[in-house]
């Protein structure tokens, strides 16, 4: 009849438990930890709101025993005394990994956060709420007073934490019997004060990588300044660019360079401008024309500058025509419509779409593809990459774009950061592989009851963010 055998088990267990509780021996006497294990201290790495209190776990204490922690602001417990109850099976220090790490010792300590200002809160004044139809000024007054009061309250709490020592006593009870923790015949009292700390120890795994990575990146930038010939693998897409140029010359048609809608400050646009410069140097040699489609005056100005310089460097300043670099339209869809229209009318031999793109990418690439042009795309907007990959002949994906730009421009800041990021990637790859290996081995060893496994599993906490 019983559908779930598990339920039957649970029921039997409850019955057995009740039988023991009713007919068995009276509840076990509470035991106390050694007096010197009872400690209170400021909780580290916090904003000064909490005191930590700890004492050793007593193996003999069963579930029905409760520790009672008494808190007072006077040493003789003469004033107001607050009681905090902690079951003998709960509240282990090892649960507080954030503040106390994952040391094995913590598994044998009870722990409680005590927030003095919440236990003994300062008085809060009430501000009278205005009527529903009160004037704007009255309501503003109310809002101002409320906020002022909130600030005062917050300040009072902080002041209380800062200026008040808290005193603690410990006892254990099973409901009928209570024993008090004593040291040399008198009840042991410990005290501590909550302090606002100046360093977040649990963010070490954040700070150390941050500092090391900063040094690596800045170091490589310096290095690249001295020697800009840092090795970067050639990005295959750049060859496709050369091929496209060749075709354009052959067919005697122009090349379109579409910037996308991003402002000049964005990384993708900077990369696009670098690539444009390189492209123009070759175009000047081949004697075909590049037409640049801009959406903002800033990118237009910068593009003009770059193209002009490229033609001059190639020895053909006469071939430069500023009208080739047009401000097409400033808004997403008018830009798309205008660029698409020009693609259909002028039928360029090659279209470069390099920069930061949003939803317009699909329409641009699809229209471009319908004219039969060779299309080369590059963007760091990963959501748009699928459309470029399907519609273009070649796509520079995300960071490849930055790498291509660094490769071509040899700018130290780009080269140096690229190299620094590569170092970061090695570290991440190693962390992923070694971490997985350690955790897998650790799990297996623990299953075999080998203690070293636990150590391996604890290594995982190195990358645990708090």
């Amino acid at each position, binding site marked *: 009849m019983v559908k779930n055998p598990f339920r039957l088990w649970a029921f039997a267990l409850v019955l057995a438990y009740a039988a023991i509780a009713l007919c068995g021996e009276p509840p076990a006497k509470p035991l106390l930890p050694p007096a010197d294990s009872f400690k209170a201290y400021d909780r580290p790495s916090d904003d000064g709101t909490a005191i930590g209190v700890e004492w050793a776990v007593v193996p003999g204490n069963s579930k029905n025993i409760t520790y009672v922690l008494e808190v007072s602001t006077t040493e003789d417990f003469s004033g107001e005394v607050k009681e905090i109850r902690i079951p003998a099976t709960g509240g282990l220090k090892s649960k507080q990994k954030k503040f106390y790490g994952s040391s094995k010792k913590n598994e044998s300590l009870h722990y409680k956060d005590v927030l003095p200002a919440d236990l003994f809160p300062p008085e809060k004044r009430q501000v009278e*709420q205005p009527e529903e139809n009160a004037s704007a000024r009255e309501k503003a007054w*109310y809002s101002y007073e409320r*906020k002022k009061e909130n600030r005062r309250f917050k300040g009072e709490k902080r002041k209380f934490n800062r200026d008040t020592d808290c005193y603690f006593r410990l006892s254990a009870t099973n409901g009928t019997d209570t024993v008090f923790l004593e040291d040399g015949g008198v009840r042991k009292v410990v005290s501590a004060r909550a302090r606002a700390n100046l360093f977040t120890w649990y963010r070490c795994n954040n700070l150390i990588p941050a500092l090391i990575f900063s040094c690596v990146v800045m170091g490589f930038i310096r290095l690249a300044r001295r020697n800009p010939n840092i090795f970067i693998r050639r990005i295959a897409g750049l060859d496709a660019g050369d091929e496209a140029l060749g075709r354009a010359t052959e067919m005697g048609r122009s090349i379109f360079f579409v910037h996308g809608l991003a402002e000049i400050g964005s990384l993708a646009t900077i990369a696009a401008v670098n690539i444009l410069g390189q492209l123009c140097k070759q175009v000047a040699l081949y004697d075909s024309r590049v037409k640049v489609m801009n959406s903002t005056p800033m990118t237009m100005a910068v593009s003009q500058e770059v193209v002009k310089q490229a033609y001059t460097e190639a020895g053909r300043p006469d071939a430069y025509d500023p009208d080739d670099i047009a401000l097409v339209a400033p808004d997403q869809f008018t830009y798309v419509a205008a660029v698409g229209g020009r693609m259909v009318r002028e039928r360029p031999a090659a279209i470069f779409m390099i920069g930061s793109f949003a939803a317009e990418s699909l329409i641009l690439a699809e229209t471009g593809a*319908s004219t*039969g042009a060779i299309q080369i795309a590059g963007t760091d907007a990963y*959501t748009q990459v699928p459309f470029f990959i399907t519609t273009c*002949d070649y796509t520079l994906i995300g960071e490849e774009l930055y790498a291509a730009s660094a490769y071509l421009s040899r700018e130290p800041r780009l080269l140096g950061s690229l190299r620094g990021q590569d170092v970061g990637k090695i570290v991440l790859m190693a962390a992923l592989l070694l971490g997985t290996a350690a955790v897998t081995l650790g799990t297996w060893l623990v299953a075999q009851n080998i203690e070293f496994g636990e150590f391996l599993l604890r290594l995982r906490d190195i990358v645990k963010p708090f």
Partner: protein
Amino acid sequence: MPETAITTVSDAELRWQLMIRRIIHLLLPIVVMVPFLCEIDMPGKPSPLVKQIYYDLEALEPGSVVLFSLDFDPGSQAELAPMTVAALRQCFKNDLHPIVMTHWFSGLGLHKRLLEETAEEFAPDKKSGRDYVLLGFRPGGQSVILSMGDSITGAFDKDYYGKITEGMDALKDVDSLRDIDYALVLSAGGTIDGMWIPYGSDRYGFPIGAGCTAVMAPDLYPFEQSKQITGIIGGLRGAADYEVLVGAPDDATSAMAAQSFAHLYIIGLVIVANIEEFVRKRSKKRE
């Protein structure tokens, strides 16, 4: 990405392609309209990622505060408005207090309408200021979140209607973001992984559920696996799932048939294209 062969296409073929394109374009709205005209209904079973958010909200006590960050504009209304309405209905039904804000001012008028209309369904029980709050918009992105982390009424002195937020009943137990019980971010771009996770939940420790356009959904899976968000409502299908869970099928559920037909249409196009490609390759080989 390795090279694809660059091929030259003749003008005649381009014209042919243009015509095919027109036909494809013309057929699409017809395919979409058929289920509407024939009143075909096609509800589905909710996905586990959507269920997680639903059960998270169900588990909240009455009176809990749920922060809605509606970061979308009318451009994604078709996907995100049904989600918003379904989640708001769930909140009102369970007596949770939604607090609605946005990072996208261009959607503000829409958000106001959605909130007011949904509250009206539960009239006269639900009142602005007591059961829900429309905080409105503040520019600043991450700054808004950090400021709310200090004090919500400090970041939003006044709500959308110009009422002072300090002392509002719905915000009684909520001082800062730390007191928020759940945050549902319905976003059409960037605000989940760019703002709410790094500056909001990771810092102030409240659970986040993500509702997003289907474009963004694939990017959020890493955050779901790392438990930085509790679930994902992705696109119109996610919205339909949520409507089914809440028990109030609406726009999204009734759109599922049209969605299915359109997907089949596109899959069909892909298959035809590949058959064509295959045949062309074979005939080339024979030549």
